[in-house]
Every structure is written in structure tokens, then in C-alpha cells.
């Protein structure tokens, strides 16, 4: 339940960035998983696929880095680090 809400929030953020940047879709996403966030990369990507279906991030490639540093300030968190967007050139003008 926790992870559903967490990943939903992340996908909402992606949608918002897409709208803001006038992008069509997200091509790549880099996510960082803290050592104490209780999600493995597999677990995360499964939830991500579910939540991203039908959104601009539907076909995005996921790059997941999972940390084992329990002393990291964000060890309990999931961070969205960067993304690559694809946009129609006309939208830029």
C-alpha cells in the first residue's frame, strides 16, 4: 500500500514535468533507492509499470540505482534523479 502511494506520487511528478516541458513522453528515468526504503529494484519496477501504464512514462526505460548506505541522509527515500524527455520540435517554437 505504501509503495503504491509512493510510486503514484512519482508518476504524477513525471506527468507534471512532461506538461511543464511540453514533452510527449519520457524516454529514460533514473531512480535512486535508499538502503532503508524497503523496495528492491524489481519491486520498484513492477509497481512503476503498473502506475505508468497510460501515462507519458508508459514506455520509459528505468535505470535504478540501489544504495546500501544505511547512513545516507535519504536512506529511507526514493529519489527521482533525472529523466530524458522527447518532444515534438514544433512544440518548442
Amino acid at each position, binding site marked *: *500500500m*505504501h509503495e503504491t502511494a509512493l510510486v503514484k506520487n512519482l508518476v504524477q511528478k513525471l506527468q507534471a514535468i512532461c506538461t511543464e516541458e511540453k514533452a510527449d513522453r519520457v524516454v529514460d528515468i533514473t531512480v535512486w533507492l535508499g538502503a532503508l526504503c*524497503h523496495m528492491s529494484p524489481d519491486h520498484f519496477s513492477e509497481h512503476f509499470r503498473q502506475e505508468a501504464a497510460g501515462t507519458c512514462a508508459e514506455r520509459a526505460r528505468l535505470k535504478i540505482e540501489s544504495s546500501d548506505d544505511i*547512513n545516507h*541522509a535519504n536512506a529511507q527515500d*526514493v*529519489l*527521482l534523479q533525472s529523466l530524458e*524527455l522527447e518532444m515534438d520540435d514544433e512544440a518548442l517554437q
Partner: protein
Amino acid sequence: MSRKTIKVNYLARVEGEGALNVTVRDGQVRNAELRIFEPPRFFEGLLRGRDYSEAPDVTARICGICPVAYQMSSVNAMENALGIDVDGPLRALRRLLYCGEWIESHALHIYMLHAPDFLGYAGAVDMAKDYPDIVKRGLALKKAGNAIMALVGGREIHPINVRVGGFYRTPTRKELAPLAEALKQARDDALATVRWTAGLDIPEADRDYHLVALHHPDEYPMNAGRIISSRGLDIAVEDYNQHFVESHVQRSTALHSHLREHDCYLVGPLARYSLNFDQLSPMAREAAKDAGLGATCNNPFQSIVVRSIEVLYACDEALRLIDAYQEPEQPFLAHEPKASEGFGCTEAPRGLLFHRYRLDAEGRIQEAQIVPPTSQNQPSIEADLKEMVGGWLDLPADVLRERCEQTIRNYDPCISCATHFLKLDVRHE
């Protein structure tokens, strides 16, 4: 088309997970209403029209902390509907899988969510700075639970190896052997966990709970048994709906459960332990005594010690099951779908989890009912809060919120994973 890379560093957050509204009139707490996010209703709709064989995999996705529980209750219900009796090594393997989930989920709850409360930390990250070895022990325990789930369940999270009638594939004795080695270490860690939690500064509280749990004459309850209570209830799983009612509460997406005869009740580790103490292994009973626990426990803050006892038991039981394991001749029992109704109830780490399904002749799901522990405990959590908040009203707002979160964390990791998850609104009338 062009591409653009942007750096974000955005922290994903849990929003709208929980809200607590407290109403105070004349200095007295009149009402404590907890609003929590609850997806099983959505899954009940999702299951309608699907094939009976899909239920275990679909329901396992409801929760990443207790997927086996959802899988086990649904598979039990389907087997009940179709008249299949899974016994022998297949039954033992399912119990082993459930042990993995208890170890994993309880370790997470104890070390990452609950212990920081007692030691005065906002979360596990702060606690890890001062107690790195303890946090590492928690992670190691969790890993041992995960290893069982990965091997028997086919995957660490949202296992996919369980099917109606048994498993898709069963492990060999040789494959289980390395698990036993890891579990011996885990059992030592679990014993150390019991001693450690028993030494925490635990608030005094003695609530008059109506405790409800499964009970089985020959084993500590996980996957099978009758539903019994501390006030004399003793019913078959099939009769659940005759004694328990769910009612819609406007303010919440969750349904609340009540017992027709006694109103609110408690499920989870305290109930399981208090109703089944004699079924624990000698090692677990001994550790409980050394930790100062009696054969029953009514202090919700002590649930951290009781969880530790259950982790110890689950390690001990998993070792016993691995030692006695005989490779089954077939991974599952053959069967045919038929028009039927089935019921399943198991002990999720945080309490009783009930499923009911009605199938048509082709085995399509006509109706699905899922009652998770959270909705059964919600009236009890609210009762705890109502009783306790009154004494805390003079505290600063953030301290008050922390106390309320701690009270809720006694019950459930799933609604309180995030630190500071709770939106607290105290209204003076």
C-alpha cells in the same frame, strides 16, 4: 523530435495516506476518526470476471509488505471452493513460505518503523547513525525472510510460484539446504532481537481488547485453523460473514469491521500470541518468559516484543519444516472449475485476512470479498487513540502527532511506513 535531459532530484512522497481528526469538547476527547488509504476494494472490482487461477497473483500485488498473506488467503479460498485439499509436503512448503513473510515483514516493522519510536528517533535513518549494528541486524533478518520467499515463492516480492492446487514448481531438498544455514544465523539474530526489544522503555498500557485470531490444535496459526476469540467465539472460516459485519464509513475509503455480538476487536500479533501461546515452539516460549511476557499480552506498545517472539518462532519453524521436507511427487493437485463459493482465512503478519469468492461453472470470478487486517483493527485503533489522546492534549502539536503515529504503528506497518505520515487535525468545539 528532439530530446532533453533534465536533472530533478525529486523525493517521492506518500501523500494522503492517513489523517486523524480529533474532536475535543469541554476538554474531553469525543471522537477520534482515522482516515486511511485502502486499496483492497479496488482489487475486488478488478477480480470480477477474471479466471479463478489468477486470484493468487492479482491479490499478491495488493501489498509489497505482505504479498504472501494475500496469496495464501486467496488460494485457500479457491481450493475451498473447488474441494481441493492441499496436504503433506505441499502444505508444509506453503507454511515455510509464510514463515518467510513473517520474518521479513516483522523485521521491517520492528527495526525500521517501530524501534525508532522507543529510542526517540524520527526514523530508521537517524537511528542507524547511533545504532548501525542494530539496524544491520534488522536488515540481515529481513534478508533471511526474503531468501525464503525468493526460493519458495519464486521471487522476493509479489511471489509468483503459488497456484491453485499447490505450486508451479517445488524446490528440491538440495535447494533448501543453504536456506537452513542462513536461518540458523537468523534464529540467533531473532533471539537477540527479543532480548533487545524487551529492554526498550515500553509505556505501560493495559487495554481490554476482544482478541480474535486463528487457532489450530497442532500448530501456531498461519495458514489454517478456526477463528476463535478471547470471549468465546469459535467458528469455522466459512461462517465469518455470519459473525463479522463490515460497514461503510463516510469519511474513509475503508470499510470498518465489527463483530455482531461485541463490536470492535483486535487482530494481529497480540491476539495471535495470547490465543495460541501453547502452540509456540519451546524455544519461543522460553524466550517470551525471559523477556518478561506472560501467556497473554494486552499492552499494544509491547507488540514489538511479541513480534520479535514471532520472528524467533518463524525461524525455528522454518528450520523444522526444511529438515522434515520430502520432495512431493507432483507440484500441484489437478482439478476442474465448477460453480461454487469458497472461503479462506490466514494470519497475515499484522492479523487475520479473510477472502471469499463466488465462481461460475467456467471458474470465472463472480464476486470477491477481501477483508484486510487494517479495516478489522481500525475501530480498535480509534478506540486506543480516543482513550490516550485525552492525556496528551497539552503537548505541542508535533509531539502530539508523533504520539498518535506511534500508537498507530503499534498495529500496522502498511499505513505508517512513512515517518510523519499523519495529518492531524484537533478541533475544539
